[in-house]
């Protein structure tokens, strides 16, 4: 799995590529926590390149969301494929994890 982070104004966008599961969850958590600790608590996860997510990945997303909220920011998800979107829905956390159809829409939601 790869994560590429870009800054768009005061929002950091982390683009995921590959699978977010038990094998890659810690790596993702570290990369995103680094962003939050560096003061980028307004964070978007661009999931358009993510082809798979398991419950370990969901746990990572919730953990990052907690960190962002604790720093006065938020963590928003964008561009999830139908498969990934279905997992978010099945987990019952769509009320917590705010999702947007595109990266741009998620970034603009912070304005």
């Amino acid at each position, binding site marked *: 799995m790869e994560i590429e982070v870009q800054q768009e104004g005061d929002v950091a966008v982390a683009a995921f590529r590959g699978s977010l*599961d*038990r*094998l890659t969850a810690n790596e993702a958590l570290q990369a995103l926590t680094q962003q939050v600790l560096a003061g980028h608590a307004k964070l978007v996860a661009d999931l358009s390149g993510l082809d798979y997510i398991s419950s370990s990945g969901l*746990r990572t997303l*919730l953990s990052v969301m907690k960190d962002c909220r*604790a720093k006065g920011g938020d963590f928003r998800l964008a561009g999830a494929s139908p*498969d990934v979107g279905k*997992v978010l829905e099945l987990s019952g956390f769509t*009320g917590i994890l705010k999702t947007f159809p595109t990266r741009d829409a998620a970034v603009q939601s912070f304005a």
Partner: protein
Amino acid sequence: MPRESILLETQATLPLVRVLAGALRGVLDEWGVPESQRSLLELALVEAATNVARHAYVERELGNVALILGREAPYLYLAVRDSGHPFDPSALPDLEEPDPEDPSTWPEGGMGIPIMRSVSEKLEYTSENGFNTLTLTVRMEET
């Protein structure tokens, strides 16, 4: 249609859980299971087999995880078997509804169970003769 079954078995490690999931995908593809259902069943397997890889053989010699797949229209049977410590995920209560505004209510784990429950009509667990088996009964979607 007579019931068909396939047994796939490997060491219970996380990298090999991925391999098992890929093998499951191939079988379901061969059986004509629609793409949308294939990916959810693959996820259910990963959840169950990851539990085995992480917990079943703690403080004992690494053992195997087996996937036993069966079909008898209109049902698919997906069983995950190990010979480690018994652990019955089907007995766990549903997660409490989290409050979106209160992170202290957000779950730290146990998220795989609702996923397995939601993709199956029945989730059964047995532990006998040294083997633990979690079986998901799934109604096959029409293509």
